[in-house]
């Protein structure tokens, strides 16, 4: 099984980092490309009882049972529709695989530390913990998501409480 190393160690060396940008509704987001395992189309999932609405269910990724989270529902952006263009980004964070549903994948962008601006104080709608910062590419604002923090958060409920505790 291929494992892509998690990103947290590469922050300080000043070199450029690569991000995968994706679209949720009308907004542009990006996440650390090192945590991306693969990108695939949306497939039918097996529903999990009593899970939060944004946890669509689980599917079989070459023998691993992987949960699928719809970020559009989690962030309450755009319409959660599923068609042949709906994309799932398979992420590998802390050796756990999670699929996130997005509207589209746009590009790979290189950003240096200077180009990443600190996020403003947000309201309740987007939690600062999950935000790396903001960047501007081609006059578009890209929201950099701290995907490791998001996946590991209690809010997403992707892990058992004791498993989350070990990662903080």
């Amino acid at each position, binding site marked *: *099984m291929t494992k892509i190393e998690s990103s947290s160690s590469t922050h300080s060396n000043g070199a450029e980092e690569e991000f995968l940008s994706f679209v949720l509704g009308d907004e542009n987001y990006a996440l650390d490309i090192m945590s991306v395992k693969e990108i695939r189309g949306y497939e*039918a*999932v*097996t*529903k*999990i*009882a*009593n*899970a939060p609405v944004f946890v669509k*269910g*689980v*599917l*079989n990724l*070459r*023998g*691993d*049972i*992987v*949960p699928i989270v719809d970020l559009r529902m989690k962030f309450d952006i755009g319409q959660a529709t599923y068609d042949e263009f709906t994309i799932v980004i398979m992420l590998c964070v802390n050796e*756990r*695989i*999670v699929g996130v549903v997005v509207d589209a994948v746009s590009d790979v962008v290189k950003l240096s530390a200077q180009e990443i601006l600190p996020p403003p104080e947000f309201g309740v709608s987007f939690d600062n913990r999950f935000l790396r910062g903001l960047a501007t590419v081609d006059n578009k604002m890209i929201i950099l998501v701290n995907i490791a923090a998001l996946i590991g958060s209690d809010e997403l*409920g*992707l*892990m*058992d409480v004791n*498993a989350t505790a070990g990662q903080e």
Partner: protein
Amino acid sequence: MSVEMSQFHPVFFEETQEHLQLLEQLLMGLDIAQPDSEDLNSIFRAAHSIKGGSGIFGFTALADVTHIMENLLDKARKGEFSLSIPAVDILLNTTDTLGEILNSYRNELEIDWLKVTQTQTVLNGLLVDPGENLSALGESDLEPSTAPEPQTTDSFGFFAENKVPGAEHRDLSDFGFFTAERNGQIAQTIDPGFGLFDELEPEPSLSKKAAAAEPIALPKTDAGPVKKAGNSSGESTLRVETTKIDALVNLSGELVITQSMLALIGAEVSGELGERLQSALLELERNTCEVQDAVMSVRMLPVSSVFNRFPRLVRSLAAKLKKKVELVVEGGSTEIDKGMIERLVDPLTHLVRNSLDHGIETAQQRLDLGKAESGTLLLKAEQKGGSIVISISDDGAGLNRERILAKARENGIVSAHSPADEDVWPLIFSPGFSTAAEVTDISGRGVGMDVVRRNIEALGGHIAIESKAGVGSTFRIQLPLTLAIVDGMCVAVGEQVFVLPLVHIVESIQPSPEQLKTLSNQQLIKVRGEYLPLLNLSQLMAIKPTNPSPDQGIVVLIETSKHRFGLCVDALVGQQQVVIKSLERHYRRVNGVSGATIMGDGSVALILDAESLALQVKHLDGVTI
């Protein structure tokens, strides 16, 4: 330097563990009167290897103890020191202590230096004075718990009786067996027609004695799937991390799924191309099956690696209980999944202790009843179809029907007036159930049997009891061949399929409306005069069912170790073996679900956990009229 050394520590710990096991087995199998020089040499070599290794790595506590042990063994193999039963006991205790020290080093715990010094003193005492007072030295100093009262002489007297071959057993023909008994009570049933030796023949003999004592006496390294003769495990075996093997097992499981997906697609191709595709697919199917079997077999270990610990246990328990017990082991070479072996140890130990404590009578009682003086405990493993059956039989008193029933009535768990025996025996698996007249420190606290049953069921197995008063009892454990696969019934609710482990299913019925009742909003189903709570899987799993009311669907009756209830589903899809996948690996625990599996079409189905589903029932006990 120390950093470089530490990378070899795991290997050293593994090897030392094996040496200790070998040491114990050889000591147990040693013929005290005429020790086999090859055995003595092997014992010496094992101790020597431990000493050498621990010296190199600076594990002084290990090295110090083994040093004295080695001196002693060196004298023994040169014939300067004659081993006696108490001396062997001391050496066995030393082996235990070494194991404890090893664990301390392995887990980086504090070394119990007091115990180290004690052990050294005892061994030195043995070196200086191999005389009569050894028994007191050995037992009371090393393990005060095993000899609470100064009765050591009594218990050794028990062995002393056996030292005179045939004095007590004139009626029995074969003395050859009794030498084995004297050493470690790994005796065989004295029955010429038993044919044990026929079974044994294919097993390479490590030494004459070891072979006579059944494959169990073979060291673990040699008893692996690769059955090689000879003393050295040599180059014929390869040490591999279990994670690597598990990865292989996973991949081969995937291969099977991919293959069945291909077969589905291939069936749609027609014409000449289709035919060629079909034959290639058939070939693929056979090969994938073989790959999976081969990979699975890597995980298999002989049951003897569990059974090996019992001669020792039986010997010390028998001495403690002042009973005479012969342990007979059969089918030690039967192979089961490694993961299962580890989890079988506790339940088996419990059952063996139980048989010894409650089953087999004391020598005097047995003589009064006209039975052979020493009881027989048979530990047997065999493969039957797709499962492994392990049975523990004793020829003791059998279960006491009256006492079990009295106790059950006291606890209010039985109502029928004269239930059949088959319904009585399982009662002992109820929580908090002990019929022992008094609690001993060996068993009788009543916490054990329900745990035994739960452990076995957690392995996907099943335990049954046969018993006859005065004749003996047999506990029969049926286990699947591997942990990774479960026999399941696929049930459908709405558009989703779930897998129910077959072990928990009693029957499936299509209920008529008259059978369905409610009790303060809890649905009940009446089956053969008994009201059972009824759960709706669609409700539990938050799925919209195809059939709105239970009488249009199917009710599966489920029995767990504690409860019986009905589970309402839309339809039965079929029975099949499924590979268990962890849901927690990438997600989390889900209520009512024990895992997931991948179906033939690549989709995921959840495996239901009957025990936790039972917790959803408000009124947990079936109401009987």
